[in-house]
């Protein structure tokens, strides 16, 4: 649905902080299903943890947040030189299983409540059909 080139045009985050590789399904403002492939080459595995690669939970949250940014993106929202800045306000999360090298992280995000300039979303992370984490994220958006 969206390849990495298109994703990079939408996300304000850049290398080495891109946490979405592909978008499988997208209904703008309503639903997104996105993927991140976890490779042993991820730089964080060097320290998290030596000899026991576990993807940091905060980066799973980051992947959820980036999927949400893509879900809310629409070309009409980009006005001239004004860029949207996203600020995470709160996170309620439960981690159920660890992620490691070779896993494919699948993230699904849907809105709970959206108002002008802010929103609350529900995010589910899974890998190979196993639930990895579920979360609620709230964020604000400023156009600067």
């Amino acid at each position, binding site marked *: 649905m969206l390849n990495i080139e298109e994703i990079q045009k939408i996300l304000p985050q850049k290398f080495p902080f891109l946490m979405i590789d592909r978008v499988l399904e997208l209904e703008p403002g309503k639903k997104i299903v996105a993927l991140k492939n976890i490779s042993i080459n991820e730089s964080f595995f060097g320290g998290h943890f030596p000899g026991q690669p576990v993807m940091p939970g905060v980066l799973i949250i980051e992947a959820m947040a980036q999927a949400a940014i893509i879900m809310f993106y629409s070309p009409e929202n980009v006005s001239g030189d004004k860029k949207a800045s996203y600020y995470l*306000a*709160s996170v309620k999360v439960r981690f159920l299983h660890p992620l490691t090298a070779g896993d494919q992280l699948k993230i699904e995000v849907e809105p*709970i*409540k959206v*108002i*002008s300039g*802010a*929103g*609350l979303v529900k995010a589910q992370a899974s890998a190979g059909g196993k639930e990895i984490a579920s979360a609620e994220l*709230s964020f*604000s958006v400023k156009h600067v």
Partner: protein
Amino acid sequence: MPDLENEIRNMIAEIVEKDPAQVTLDAKFFEELGMDSMMALEIMAGMEKKYKITIPEEKLTQLTTLRETVAVAKEYLEKKNA
């Protein structure tokens, strides 16, 4: 509706991380309970989910005390049941 009042009080107390006893009917959310606009959005979304109602965005500024918040919830519950 005392139940509605207590349910919403407990929800607010959890979001602002205060003891429910501090969330009196007229304690001011922003000045006295340290709430911000993002927490107000969480309260709104929490009430929508719990009571299966939809509260329009412009009501957000009305959420300033527990008394006002209960009144908003009541208004939309009555609309739903009407």
